[in-house]
């Protein structure tokens, strides 16, 4: 029911985005695996503030050590803009994702132009990786890949 409603909305409101970014979280064979915190953001090539497209963290964890405590471990995102983002942020923040490919829409109101796309992942008891790639909006096709904490990152026009 929910699904068909979503499809109906997207048909009416198309184009709903300026393209998509697919982020792959690799499966990592370790005894103690925790899903990573991931941030995806863009920065205008010519300089200017970063815009966060997605941040996945332990939203549900409260108490003494809430999930937000470790957001600064996404250290580049934190410095570039994460720290000024009020969380939870509608359409931007969400729960951590399991290994696999996850698609993020580039919002339709991102102005056409040249950007750098950044994807940063930090994993508890694991590593941290930052991948960046050029991005043009509206999006053409582009690809990059991480080596350790991130897999393929694919940009598509829709």
């Amino acid at each position: 029911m929910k699904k068909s409603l979503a499809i109906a909305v997207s048909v009416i409101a198309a184009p709903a985005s300026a393209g998509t970014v697919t982020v792959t979280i690799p499966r990592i064979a370790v005894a103690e695996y925790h899903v990573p915190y991931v941030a995806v953001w863009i920065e205008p090539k010519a300089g200017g503030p970063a815009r966060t497209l997605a941040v996945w963290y332990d939203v549900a964890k409260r108490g003494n050590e809430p999930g937000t405590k470790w957001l600064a471990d996404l250290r580049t995102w934190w410095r570039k803009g994460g720290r000024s983002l009020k969380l939870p942020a509608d359409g931007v923040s969400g729960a951590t994702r399991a290994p696999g490919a996850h698609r993020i829409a580039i919002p339709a109101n991102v102005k056409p132009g040249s950007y750098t796309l950044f994807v940063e992942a930090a994993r508890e008891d694991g590593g941290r990786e930052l991948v960046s790639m050029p991005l043009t909006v509206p999006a053409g096709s582009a690809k990059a890949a991480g080596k350790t904490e991130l897999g393929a990152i694919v940009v598509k026009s829709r």
Partner: protein
Amino acid sequence: MIAKSLFFTTAALGLTVPAFAHNQWLLPSTTVLSDTQQSVTVDAGASTAPFEPNHNALSVEGVKVWAPDGSMGAIENAARSKYRSTFDVKIDKPGTWRIGMENGGISGSFKVDGEPWMVGRRRGPPAGGPGAAGGARAGGAGAGRPGPAAAMGPGAPGGRPQIDPSHIVASVDDIPANATDLDLTETVGRNEFFVSAGEPSDALFKPTGRGLEFVPVTLPTDLVSNEPGQFRFLVDGQPAAGLEVEVIPGGRRYRESDGTQKLKTDDQGMVTVQWPMAGMYWLNASLTDAKPGNPKASKRRMSYTATLEVLAP
């Protein structure tokens, strides 16, 4: 041994700071926090290589905490162990905090009826400041480099006149009215680090226009190893041009060289620091001039020390 006697000589005369000084350092557990529900825990010590606890603990009784909104915070859980002291600071307000010590005093020599006297064996925060009882500080002026705190040493070897312990006064106010040949140095030092919770703020970096001041252009909790850090130094509100700034990375014993960078400020008092790696850095600058605040002193020695955390990009 040679080094030691030289130390006592220079210290007793209150002249210069020995080059083999033990550096005083504050080492915070972290400097970037994502919320206001956490604490930083801090080590404080004095040793040749910054952050290596192998010589002396630093007294933390004079540590002050400036919260981003201008209010004063407090330290918690202070403890002194053999080679370092520790304390915690609750970072419960958003913005950039300033945590450290300000110390000052006046030391030097004078004469009464031709007999040599000394002032300033005790060091502590500036007069009137909290915790003014200096006592057994680990090496002096609370700034990065110890001042002539070793004046209690067993006289001065090497043929120098020995100062009778009864000829040492604690403060400049105790100098008798008939004193002559005053040779006094005012010492002002600051040793600090910064912590940001959430978005950093620069409210605490507004210069006061007094003494040697550190005015960051790159915010000190925003440092990354692939971007240079830029800082400005001011003396009495004016650019401190040509000031020597020393920058030493921690982790000395895992390297062949101490990695010390000796930099100089430009005409605008600006220094640009390249970071060879991520990690904790110890930054120090000192300057002596002839503009003391106290009319009895003839020289003013100012020193500034900061611990800076540089993250990997």
